[in-house]
């Protein structure tokens, strides 16, 4: 389980790409050349149509240039397919592993029948014994068992599943390690969690997300514009060539206007092939990055929505605080030394195995060097456990002088009786109180802590200050969130005073105290009413309505089926802090698309400076002034542009899969940074790239 504390606030990273992967995906890339498949990507479809056209031209009127251009146009399409194939390939491997877990499972129905897992219907009740694989998703209705869920979570430590409560959901394909449980199947045939997971990681029925659709529209519009601007150029070219009778026919232009090969090259170079080629790979890779973090998004839409989130609802316990209160201070009353109090507190807590109790022992050791005594060795001590009635725990020590341990503490004749517990209970036990004690108690409560009063028979020694410990690094994390424009709201069952104190310490923007599931739902609705998108995590059945209402609802895998069904993501690690990472991945996905679109469009400027003079300087020599890169010849200029256009796709595949680097910061800072890199870079890089390619290919004879 990744803890927030261990994760420095830094960029989201994804998997790396190895070259073998490119090679392995090649057959699939070639299969994707099928125009029926390519039709879904209009930009690349046009490149393919152009490639077919130039192939025909190269066959009927062969020349070195024609063939090289044709080859590179085909490569452009292949590279685009390769990007998609590589992205899909990663998911496929994962899916294969999942499928293996699903193979040949048998289901043993309660009534003794034995059927194949695939034939299970909703509502069937099955019995699973130790060593058997759970045949389908469902809820435990009887028994308790430890279950190995590594097949889906990758986590080898077994988890407990039991009937009732929030740990009743089991997943098909996981294995019962011990005991026996009875499970009611909740899935429909073929729609199990694993089935859905396989479909998701494979990207089989990947649907375009809203932003992807919008971007596709923009790309289609740009493609049409460039298509128009090139096609309508032809009559103008014919006119110009005819007017300037002195202009000789070249490989680029003759009496029939711009030659077919060059016209296609110009179109391919201008339409946004870079982003067109990488768009679907970016989407698949974005989902993949989530899967790598053991988060399953039920739709791409949810991933995008994560990037848009305005309000993050975070459960206090486990997300913001370590989950348990810990002793932070011993506050003695007048006349008692702190070490005296610490000693008494320690004694009373020796047998207290609750985290709070352990923390008291630890604090006493750290602050006052009091070594922990083994309760088992203290034969003269009787430990009084905590009960709901007494609301106290403590120790009674027999008045025995033999006990070295006891003496060392400073013996009091007549033995000792020490109690610690809630203020009211302890005061009642002592029989009287003082203003001083109530002052200390109130002070601790006001600061959000929990006071534990320590008393020795007849006398109050002081108060232990227990407090919720906020995970380290949370404040920085929330500051980042704020910079990203995300409001964090802490949800807690604590009273408002305690909640306020912790909220202030953690640095969240707001809190919801004494929260009931209804309060949560109401809060989400209120936020949404104001046009804000809300993300939350949840695991219990009573979280289900809120999870369903939230725009991004992340259900814990340990949670109930109802919760998993209601959310649109499932975190297999059941780590509530994952929400923050999910938001970052959502943003990174959008940023990658935007950055590569900008890069792609900015590229066109250099391509114009390569191709326009290459075509038309032959008619109007003055236009050679536009050949700012001083490219070798018209042929080499056009070819360089085409080659660059193809190579840049391959060069950007890793970026598309990994996603651009994302650092949480304000929108202006992000825009400025990405604009410099991908906007300005997009203008400059192709000038350098085309020139470089030209320097090399000018040596090819016939160019």
């Amino acid at each position, binding site marked *: 389980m990744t803890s927030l504390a261990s994760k420095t606030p830094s960029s989201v990273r994804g998997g790396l790409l190895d070259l073998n992967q490119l090679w392995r995906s090649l057959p699939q890339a070639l299969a994707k050349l099928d125009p029926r498949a390519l039709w879904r990507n209009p930009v690349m479809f046009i490149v393919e149509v152009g490639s077919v056209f130039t192939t025909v031209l190269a066959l009927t009127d062969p020349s070195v240039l024609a063939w090289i251009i044709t080859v590179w146009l085909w490569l452009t399409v292949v590279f685009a397919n390769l990007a998609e194939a590589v992205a899909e390939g990663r998911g496929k491997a994962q899916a294969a592993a999942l499928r293996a877990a699903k193979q040949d499972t048998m289901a043993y129905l309660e009534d003794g029948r034995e059927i194949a897992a695939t034939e299970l219907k909703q509502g069937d009740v099955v019995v699973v014994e130790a060593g058997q694989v759970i045949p389908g998703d469902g809820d435990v209705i009887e028994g308790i068992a430890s279950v190995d869920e590594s097949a889906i979570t990758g986590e080898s430590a077994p988890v407990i599943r039991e009937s009732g409560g929030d740990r009743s959901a089991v997943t098909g394909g996981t294995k019962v390690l011990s005991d026996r449980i009875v499970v009611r199947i909740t899935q429909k045939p073929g729609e199990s969690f694993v089935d859905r997971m396989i479909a998701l990681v494979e990207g089989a029925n990947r649907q375009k997300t809203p932003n992807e659709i919008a971007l596709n529209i923009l790309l289609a519009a740009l493609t049409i514009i460039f298509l128009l601007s090139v096609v309508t150029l032809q009559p103008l070219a014919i006119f110009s060539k005819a007017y300037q009778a002195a202009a000789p026919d070249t490989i680029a232009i003759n009496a029939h206007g711009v030659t077919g090969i060059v016209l296609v090259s110009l179109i391919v170079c201008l339409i946004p092939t870079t982003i067109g080629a990488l768009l679907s790979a970016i989407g698949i890779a974005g989902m993949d990055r989530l899967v790598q973090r053991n988060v399953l998004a039920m739709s791409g839409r949810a991933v995008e929505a994560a990037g848009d989130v305005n309000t993050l609802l975070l459960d206090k316990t486990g997300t913001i605080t370590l989950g348990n209160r810990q002793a932070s201070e011993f506050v003695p009353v007048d006349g008692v030394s702190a070490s005296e109090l610490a000693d008494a507190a320690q004694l009373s807590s020796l047998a207290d195995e609750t985290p709070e109790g352990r923390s008291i022992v630890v604090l006493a050791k750290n602050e006052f060097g009091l070594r922990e005594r083994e309760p088992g060795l203290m034969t003269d001590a009787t430990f009084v456990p905590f009960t709901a009635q007494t609301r106290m725990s403590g120790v009674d020590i027999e008045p025995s002088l033999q006990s070295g341990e006891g003496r060392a503490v400073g013996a009091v004749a007549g033995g000792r009786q020490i109690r610690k517990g809630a203020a009211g209970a302890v005061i009642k036990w002592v029989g009287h109180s003082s203003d001083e004690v109530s002052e200390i108690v109130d002070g601790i409560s006001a600061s959000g802590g929990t006071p534990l009063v320590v008393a020795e028979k007849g006398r109050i020694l002081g108060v232990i200050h227990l407090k919720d410990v906020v995970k380290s690094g949370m404040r920085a994390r929330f500051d980042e969130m704020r910079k990203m*424009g995300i409001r964090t709201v802490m949800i807690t069952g604590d009273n408002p005073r305690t909640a306020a104190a912790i909220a202030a310490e953690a640095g969240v923007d707001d809190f919801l105290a004494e929260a009931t599931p209804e309060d949560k739902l109401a809060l989400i609705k209120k936020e949404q009413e104001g046009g804000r998108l809300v993300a939350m995590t949840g695991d219990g059945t009573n979280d289900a309505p809120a999870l369903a209402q939230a725009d991004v609802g992340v259900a814990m895998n340990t949670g109930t089926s109802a919760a998993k069904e209601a959310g649109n993501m499932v975190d297999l690690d059941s780590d509530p802090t994952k929400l923050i990472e999910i938001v970052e991945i959502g943003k990174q996905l959008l940023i990658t698309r*935007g950055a590569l679109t900008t890069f792609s469009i900015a590229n066109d400027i250099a391509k114009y400076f390569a191709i326009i003079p290459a075509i038309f300087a032959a008619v109007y020599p003055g236009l050679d002034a536009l050949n700012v890169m001083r490219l070798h010849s018209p042929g080499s200029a056009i070819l360089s542009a085409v080659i660059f256009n193809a190579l840049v796709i391959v060069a950007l595949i890793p970026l598309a899969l990994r996603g651009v680097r994302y650092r949480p910061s304000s*929108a202006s800072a992000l825009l400025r940074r990405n604009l410099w890199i991908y906007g300005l870079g997009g203008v400059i890089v192709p000038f350098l790239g085309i020139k470089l390619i030209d320097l090399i290919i000018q040596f090819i004879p016939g160019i």
Partner: protein
Amino acid sequence: MAGWLFVITLVLAVAAAYRPLGDYLYRVVSGRKSNVVERGIYRLVGVDPNTEQTWGVYARSVLAFSAVSILFLYLFLRVQDKLWLSLGFDGVPTHIAWNTAVSFVTNTNWQAYSGESTMGHLAQMAGLSVQNFVSASVGIAVAVALIRGFAARKSQTLGNFWVDLTRITLRVLLPIAVLATLVFMIGGMVQNLSGGTDVTTLTGATQHITGGPVASQEAIKELGTNGGGFYNTNSAHPFENPTTWTNWIQLFLILCIPFAMPRVFGRMVGQNRQGYAIVAVMSVLALASIALTVGFEVHGGGTVPQAAGAAMEGKDVRFGVPNSATFGAVTTLTSTGAVNSFLDSYTSFGGMMPMVNMMLGEVAPGGVGAGLYGLLILATITVFVAGLMVGRTPEYVGKKIGAREMKLASLYFLVTPAVVLIGTAAAFATGHNSTALNTGPHGLSEVLYAFTSAGNNNGSAFAGITVNTPWWDTALGLAMLLGRFLPIILVLALAGSLARQKPVPESEGTLPTHQPLFVGLVVGVTIVLVALTFLPALALGPIAEGLS
């Protein structure tokens, strides 16, 4: 130096008018109280000023009004010989009447005819001038409807077209036009119903001095960014632009409303800084363009300007080169299309600039209303790409730019380039480019200019080309019609779609659309998109000519 002062004073004057005029416009379009005259008009027209229209109804009202206007104007021109004050001119031939009717209703004011030898005074006043007013109002009304879309909270309606039309015409255009007419008359512009006077010149020849209600038409011609001249030589004609200072006033009138519209935007969406950002984009583009145009003309490159010693061909002495170039740039940056000097004889690059200005999509600052909605579309496209780059679903002034919004914005952005490029290519493919006066690249420029001007509803011309042939009149008429009403429909649809949305509150994660970075980005996107679309065609026209 004086030339730059001319520009600087204009900038200062327009800047000074930004807030008061913008605020006034805002009050006019958001006010609800009608005065007696307006109530009378609503009753006559038969509309209830309190009903709100959905985008569909609003669009249909715009189209109905424009369709009726085209038909009415067409018939008017056809039968002008049967009406008063025709000065003995015949009814306008069918293809020219069609072209002219479309031209004035679309706020283009492309003139395939010569004013002084075609149009009687009544046709000029009650036909053409009326459209100068109402076509301008339509542009502003559509822009306001789009702003309402941005400003609305989950609303189905965009206001009432008839109310907008009436209020804008009566409360904004008419009062300013009245004032301007008076100033122009003091400057020496003619305003009579005379059919002209024959005079004997000093050397004994006869000269026919024309008359007409020029000043009143001139005022709205500039204020409404229409540009259709009373005479053939438009604002070069001494009766249409008698002095150097009327020249300045004309430019001010042209610029004041388009530059004040962003203020209306800022006010209505409740963030004045959004208005400042838009006006900054307009200003950067406009100033760069004016500086380049003036620079190219003053430099006077090219064989003939070099031979003459200055690019004075087609320019009048009183305006000189710098002020003429400024006028040429301003009237093409706005969709006015008036000229006080003849662009066809500009230097190659000086003449390219007006073309580029129009190719920008008439957004810097563009025609009244039309410029703002054009720029808001470009800003929307910019927001989309930039918004992705900050990792959120893009939003502009609180409205999400989703698939539907992108579809409409992209289509809008496609229309004009498509009209211009297809039209130009068609002219060459069918040989109709032969009516160009000049040869070679300059002849190509004349054809390209014609369709650029028509498609963008500008109306200026590389006037050497002969365009009063049936093919040209029909083709350019279609270009003007498509270039005006397709975008209007798309804008209103976009407005409707935006209005239905619930606004998203602004946060630190929202792309700030009021900062210099965004302004620079919109400028960049505008220039790059235009350059990428039109560079090939420009390379064979003015660029080839200028680099020879």
